[in-house]
């Protein structure tokens, strides 16, 4: 009886100690709204895994200003309406900063609400419109299409020396935004778009589209599709023997596409905004850590998620307190170097609109691996 009583007391004391320790542990609420199911799941899960890795590292090192990061991850089902509902849920709990979403359509609806609530939102979306609405609370983690498309256009003009180009794109907010920016850049450079082919999200059969592209007889083919569709297109292009160089922007040269396409991705070239194959030690170390933890090769969305957290950490430490409005004010015009914050991986600058500027790369796929052939300087350092 005595022994039982002792044991009960011990357990009770243990519970009491644990709860005291828990109560003493200060946290900062920084939720994430991401595409964990539906067509955006590949992008969303990469972003989530990169983000959670950074959070674990920061929490193990003591957190931000002594507060551990608390980040529940809510699934948008790749749907803007669901994303809006989930954002409302987290806004009810007064977050300090919100991470995500990756899909531009979801970002466009969510950013109206975070602006109203005056909460910074660090997003993975790339549509040009996101940072063209004078919203002081939205920050990118990768290039917007208005910055990446001029780079790819210069590449097509200067390196490929193409006079005509065939364009294939996915008809969603991501693809349409890219298509509109790309055709404008082509026009500005006097390059003729001889085929402009719209495809469906989730499309499985690209044989008819590839026939059209072959018939267009362009000097180059620009492919702007989501991951799985890119791989399916590349397989069909190889099957039908397209001879013109296949050019892409980040996604087409991503490891996920290369893995899905098998050997069909070899020879693909283009501009890469973010890549784990960048010839930068910090990025390669991150990629190795990511691979060891999750057992798959991270794509550019994983880097977005990882650097988003370190961006939030750095800005907060500069502000010196958890003040969402002060965060937004401080982050505009801020440059972060890896020397100041190693987790940022590459020097990055956020302008007055929340657009990011950093080095980017020209690459190609060789023997099932992405190979970086040239580093392009930051736009602000040209």
């Amino acid at each position: 009886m005595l022994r039982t009583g002792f044991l009960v007391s011990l357990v009770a004391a243990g519970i009491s100690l644990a709860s005291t320790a828990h109560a003493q542990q200060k946290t900062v609420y920084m939720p994430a709204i991401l595409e964990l199911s539906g067509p955006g799941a590949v992008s969303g899960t990469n972003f989530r895994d990169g983000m959670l890795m950074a959070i674990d590292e920061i929490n193990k090192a003591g957190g931000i200003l002594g507060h551990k990061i608390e980040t529940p991850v809510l699934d948008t089902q790749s749907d803007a309406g669901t994303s809006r509902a989930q954002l409302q849920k987290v806004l009810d709990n007064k977050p300090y900063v919100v991470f995500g979403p990756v899909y531009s359509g979801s970002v466009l609806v969510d950013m109206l609400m975070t602006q109203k609530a005056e909460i910074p939102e660090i997003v993975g979306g790339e549509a040009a419109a996101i940072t063209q609405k004078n919203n002081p609370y939205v920050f990118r983690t990768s290039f917007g299409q208005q910055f990446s498309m001029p780079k790819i256009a210069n590449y097509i003009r200067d390196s490929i020396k193409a006079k005509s180009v065939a364009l294939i794109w996915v008809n969603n907010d991501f693809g349409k935004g890219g298509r509109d920016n790309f055709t404008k850049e082509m026009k500005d450079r006097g390059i003729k778009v001889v085929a402009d082919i719209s495809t469906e999200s989730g499309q499985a059969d690209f044989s008819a589209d590839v026939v059209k592209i072959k018939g267009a007889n362009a000097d180059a083919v620009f492919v702007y599709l989501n991951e799985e569709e890119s791989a399916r297109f590349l397989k069909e292009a190889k099957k039908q023997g397209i001879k013109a160089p296949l050019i892409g922007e980040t996604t087409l040269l991503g490891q996920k596409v290369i893995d899905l396409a098998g050997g069909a991705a070899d020879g693909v070239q283009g501009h890469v905004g973010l890549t784990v194959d960048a010839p930068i030690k910090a990025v390669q170390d991150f990629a190795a850590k990511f691979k060891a933890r999750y057992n798959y090769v991270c794509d550019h969305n994983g880097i977005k998620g990882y650097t988003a957290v370190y961006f939030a950490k750095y800005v907060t430490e500069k502000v010196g307190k958890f003040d969402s409005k002060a965060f937004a004010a401080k982050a505009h015009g801020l440059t972060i170097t890896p020397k100041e914050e190693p987790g940022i991986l590459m020097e990055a600058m956020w302008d007055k609109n929340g657009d990011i500027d950093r080095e980017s790369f020209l690459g190609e796929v060789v023997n099932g691996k992405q190979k970086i052939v040239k580093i392009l300087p930051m736009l602000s350092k040209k």
Partner: protein
Amino acid sequence: MNRFGLLTVAVAAVAAIVLPFLLKPFGIYLISMWVVLTIAAIGLNLTLGYAGQVSMAQGAFVGIGAYAVALLTAAGWPFFPAFVIAGLLCFAIGWLLGYPALRVQHHYLAFVTLAFNTLVFLVLRNEEWLTNGTYGIAGTERPHLFGLSTDGARAFYFFCLGMLVLLAAATWWMLRSPWGRAFVALRENPIRALSLGLDTRRYTLMAFALGSTLGGLAGGLYAPLVQFIEPNSFSLNMSFNLLLMVIVGGSGRFFGPFVGALIAVLLPEWMRIAEGYYLIIYAMLVMILMVFCPTGVLGLVEKLFKPKKPPAAAAAPTLKAEATSR
């Protein structure tokens, strides 16, 4: 409706009024979404549950209504005229969609309506000059009612709830009128209905038109609720979801859409505690529900609570009796 039914409705009505004062904005948003989707599901229940015309295009009508209100209010129209136009537009398009139903039935009709839904999706996405295409339309303003703004979450919920009460009351009245009985006759035995002098052609078209109107009006509330619409929101998924609401709640039962929408809106949210597995669990629960109560939740409730009748009284119910008991 028996005493138990009346008590349930009274409790639900009190809950609908009290809940917004107990919930945070997210909870209010969810019950507002329930109200809006219930209106659309009532429309589908009219077409499918009462008149027996299979429609897989209700999501498209929600989309047409949402875009009509979003575009007209963005062009400077006040909300209410835009809302009425959305309803009238869906009435006209729904009437036209009813014509194929005069020639084909069941799964053939399902495919016709399914194709119509895809057509609407393509128009919303590709006619960028009108709909802004894949970029969608953001920031549809919420209406003012008697000079009062409904911009707040709670105010807009009560506005939507008021609309639901009005539209549900109108539907209730209609189902108890000769029209309602004509719809049921159309479902049960169209040849006998025709032989009794019923203009089945007119009632078939009317079943589609009225159901579609309710879909359009729900869309007219969806746009200012979410304040962002895009073509993907009104793809086949929305139509399947509305169909699920009607079937799970109890097709052909007046309160079926209320219960079905509650399950379809709230169950996935409750299941989120299962994190990565929540959609799998939700899908399994729906499958189990359909296996064990194919007549929907209300069918199950009826089975559990209805006193068992002696065999002599179990004669086939008359058309009138059935129409009034639902």
